[in-house]
């Protein structure tokens, strides 16, 4: 276990380094620089600016300096917003995105697992069909189509909920649904499929033969095992939530980190791009490791060797 963790940790660090290098190279390859403006900047001014931000050094040196600073928790300062360090920006914006993502995942599990269990339990009945249809519908409505729809229905027509922003609890309802529904659909599908498989296993038959109540068989025996595949899929699902939040944050005008993925690149704000993408990558890597650990903890048959 310890061995596995150490290896995964170092693999993660290696991944991050390579990702940083790819982003670094790609960014420098994109035409245009961070100090391009409508009016041409005087060459002396440009030179001073570049010297100030260390952009006059050779590219490989810049990269090494960046990595060395990043290790110490210094991700540089934004080029486009003066006096704003990348760390500050991440501290300001990331919590909002994480909160949104957390609510969406919560909704997805709270909705998806019961629906999936119901569908499997009432396999090939109306309940199953309805739940499966809802699942495929949820999977098919792109969040960029769902979000405006929710705004039009609940915000503008019924006037039940605020149409934008991220402040009062009721303003968080629509973004959470818009982001979480597709994930809920995916979890419904997974839960249903894996429940159907588990229910046929011998130990379920044994449990029933012992005269245990149906509730006990389903929740105590079947569900626990059926949730394993769902758990192993939640790594990619978390990634999906985070990218989805980019769209949702734009539509609902939520001050999260999502929009910096695009703005920072178009501004050629190198430190912000690097910082935002690396934090994101690190987040995904850590979540994947946590999911693996949880998985091994939940299923003793799996040893953490790979």
């Amino acid at each position: 276990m310890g061995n596995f963790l150490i290896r995964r940790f170092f693999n993660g660090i290696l991944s991050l380094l390579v990702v940083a290098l790819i982003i670094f190279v790609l960014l420098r390859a994109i035409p245009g620089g961070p100090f391009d403006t409508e009016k041409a900047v005087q060459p002396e001014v440009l030179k001073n600016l570049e010297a100030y931000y260390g952009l006059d050094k050779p590219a490989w040196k810049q990269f090494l300096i960046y990595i060395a600073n990043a290790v110490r928790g210094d991700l540089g300062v934004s080029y486009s917003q003066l006096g704003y360090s990348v760390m500050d920006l991440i501290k300001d914006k990331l919590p909002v995105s994480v909160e949104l993502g957390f609510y969406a995942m919560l909704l997805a599990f709270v909705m998806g697992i019961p629906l999936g269990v119901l569908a499997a339990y009432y396999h090939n009945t109306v309940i199953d069909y309805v739940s499966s249809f809802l699942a495929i519908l949820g999977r098919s409505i792109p969040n960029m189509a769902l979000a405006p729809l929710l705004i039009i229905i609940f915000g503008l027509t019924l006037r039940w909920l605020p149409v934008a922003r991220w402040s009062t609890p009721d303003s968080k309802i629509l973004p959470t649904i818009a982001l979480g529904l597709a994930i809920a659909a995916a979890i419904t599908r997974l839960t249903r499929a894996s429940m159907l498989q588990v229910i046929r296993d011998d130990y379920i038959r044994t449990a029933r033969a012992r005269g245990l109540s149906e509730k006990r068989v389903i929740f105590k025996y079947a569900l626990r095992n059926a949730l394993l595949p769902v758990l192993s899929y939640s790594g990619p699902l978390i990634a999906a939530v985070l990218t989805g939040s980019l769209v949702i944050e734009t539509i609902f005008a939520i001050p999260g980190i999502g929009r910096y993925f695009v703005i920072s690149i178009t501004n050629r704000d190198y430190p912000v791009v690097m910082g935002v993408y690396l934090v994101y990558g690190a987040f995904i890597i850590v979540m994947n490791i946590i999911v693996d650990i949880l998985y091994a903890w939940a299923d003793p048959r799996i040893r953490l060797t790979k």
Partner: protein
Amino acid sequence: MNSTIDNIDKGQENVTFEKGESLSLLAWYRFKKNKLAVASSVFIGLLILVAIFADWVAPSHYAAEDFMSSYLKPGKDFLLGTDFLGRDLLSRIIYGARVSLSVAVIGTLTSFIVGVSYGIVSGYFGGKIDNLMMRIVDILYAVPTILFVILIMVYFRAGKSEEFTGFKALMYNLDASMGGMLFIFIGIGLTAWLPLARITRGETLAVKEREYIEAAVSQGIGRRRILFKRILPNIMGPLIIYASVEIPTMILYEAFLSFIGLGVNPPTPSWGGMIAEGIQGIRSYPHLILFPSLAMTLTVLASNFIGDGLRDALDPKLKD
């Protein structure tokens, strides 16, 4: 493939094993029984026709502006209304289908070709090559595809065709003449192949230990022939299933890119771009957002039904 044989309906048993394509024929029988999938195929088929013959079907050109009639509600002259430049919404949705469907087809194809060739090479050669190739995939996996697509698209979109010569200029001109679709294809092709590479590698690893491969090797058949004639056909099933299930993802990719402004070049219409444009006026002109959303949802829904139908037809084992 024995499981497929076990699963045939009785009546078809004698028809099927005389020709080489019998397995796909069997799959076709199963697919035909799935009404939702068939209806969806008809819908997508019609949509493809509409997209191809957009010039004749659409009431007007997608970029035809009429300032006197901007922001019109759906009505007699403009069936679905007009946008802020007075462009006919229905025409733009029809032309937008072109973009969505081309990306669905070509994006899937490119990622399929890249992913399958990568995975099959990695799996077949094994050892150090496999290790290195899969480590690269692992590393790229660490960052969500969409972020790489954004970076690559910015890289493409930041250049202008006048600045380049030779091959680059050719690519940029081609892209411009396609309304910006070429670089979307490339961007998706470069990033969406990762899962396919993994699946292909896994399947190759499983198949290459079989006796018939050993037999082929002992007969002295060349590597390339073994790869393409012995291994590839035997792992095609699961790969096609995966690719067809991923088609909606491609449509969503394009919509996402156009939504954040890195997709097709205006005035080329894309459903994602139309939604992004409509957001500003959602309070007063909800129809601008409603119709593109509906078009996108219906298309994704239909492709999901087709993908599921294909999966159930090609691999009945997977169907519960």
